[in-house]
């Protein structure tokens, strides 16, 4: 017990597809230690083969159930499927309850399926900070398709579309009308719209609203050669999943073989770079903030200074510390 295997030594075992090594390296990615990041540097260079599918939608829309059914179909095509399922952390305790696995029990012991649950730990945008590292690790571990299931999102958490090759937005019936459907935000990011729970009588209304929303924007929001489809599915009857699989396969070809797809790959790389820099900044700044906040906020409370002046002071101190560390 307690022996520490260096992260770099895990890499060959990850490449051999060893479940335990994949799991451990994902934990190390979450911890974000310099030792782990050295290994992730190698992992990133070797990744890039998997088709990354983002699945997003409001809480309770049926994302996990959809993922379970869809992953089973991909398995029937002979593909190995990795799943990164994100659920929220408590803003109070920092703890979480990760319940997505409960919906995926049919996949539980298939060696061609890997399910990893992740908590957001304060990250905005619907993903966990280490989610994309986990995707790379699963990619290197030999999984052909990696599905990221976001937290149940609101209207505005659209990061997933900047990180995945194919974005699926799940809508459930009964949650809004055609005005909701033309609002900006989450509905804009879909490469494929799915309406879940299509066994319910009000599902047709949701299908119609989404389809008419798409025709309204047909002239202005062109996606090259790709026409965004709306697919109704029901996990109870199984209807619609064959069509969903066809659409995802078709979009995979768009993502990897067309000009539109290549442009998107460039945007994904750019997002990854900027997002990683942002995360590093937050890490460094949080450390500085924890050190300085008590003193500065006391001054703020006494109104001896103002938020902008003190916030600038904090940023400056954080940058100075970083410079000092670099020279040390």
């Amino acid at each position, binding site marked *: 017990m307690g022996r520490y295997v260096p992260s770099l030594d895990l890499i060959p075992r990850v490449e051999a597809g060893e479940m335990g090594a994949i799991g451990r390296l994902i934990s190390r990615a979450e911890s974000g230690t310099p030792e782990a990041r050295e290994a992730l540097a190698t992992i990133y260079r070797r990744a890039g083969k998997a088709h990354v599918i983002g699945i997003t939608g409001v809480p309770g829309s049926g994302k996990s159930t959809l993922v379970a059914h869809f992953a089973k179909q991909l398995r029937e095509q002979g593909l190995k499927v990795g799943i990164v399922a994100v659920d929220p952390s408590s803003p109070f305790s920092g*703890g979480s309850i990760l319940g997505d696995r409960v919906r995926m029990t049919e996949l539980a012991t298939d060696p061609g399926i890997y399910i990893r649950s992740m908590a957001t730990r304060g990250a905005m945008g619907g993903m966990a900070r280490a989610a994309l590292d986990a995707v790379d690790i699963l990619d290197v571990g030999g999984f052909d398709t990696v599905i990221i299931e976001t937290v149940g999102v609101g209207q505005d958490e659209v990061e997933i579309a900047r990180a995945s090759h194919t974005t699926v937005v799940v809508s459930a019936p009964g949650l809004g009308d055609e005005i909701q459907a033309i609002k900006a935000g989450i509905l804009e990011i879909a490469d494929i719209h799915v309406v879940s729970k299509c066994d319910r009588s009000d599902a047709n209304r949701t299908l119609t609203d989404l389809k008419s929303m798409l025709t309204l924007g047909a002239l202005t929001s062109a996606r090259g050669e790709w026409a965004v489809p709306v697919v109704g599915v029901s996990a109870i009857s199984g209807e619609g999943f064959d069509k969903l699989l066809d659409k995802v396969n078709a979009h995979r070809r768009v993502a990897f073989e067309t000009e539109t797809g290549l442009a998107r790959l460039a945007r994904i790389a750019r997002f990854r770079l900027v997002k990683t820099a942002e995360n590093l900044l937050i890490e460094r700044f949080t450390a500085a903030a924890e050190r300085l906040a008590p003193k500065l906020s006391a001054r703020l409370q006494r109104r001896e200074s103002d938020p902008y002046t003190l916030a600038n002071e904090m940023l400056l101190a954080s940058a100075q510390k970083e410079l000092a560390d670099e020279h040390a």
Partner: protein
Amino acid sequence: MAQPIRVLLAKVGLDGHDRGVKVVARTLRDAGMDVIYSGLHRTPEEVVTAAIQEDVDVLGVSLLSGVQLTVFPKIFKLLSEKGVDDLIVVAGGVMPDEDVVALKEMGVKEVLLQDTPPAAIVATLERLVTERGAR
């Protein structure tokens, strides 16, 4: 920053009583841990696979059906087959004292019975993870 302790809480076999495990899940969440819940009626194979994929620190198996001496040997056999040697296995539920002794001999680190206060569950898991050390 210290990483949250990761715990898989599992219900194994024909046992539909999940009120207790949900209270424990909530307690651990509120203590800042990441809690993965398996859902009801899982097999030892499913639980062990999930523990490996999720790379949890602690596997907590809740049993109110009296089959602990059947379930835990299977779990330990699977863990050793798969080469897992640093997982902390904990049992929870209602069971006779002699079974507690047998489970501990098998490798269960702690048995948390029905009268364990929530704070003691948290403290026990924190202690076990600290004793194990970094991995």
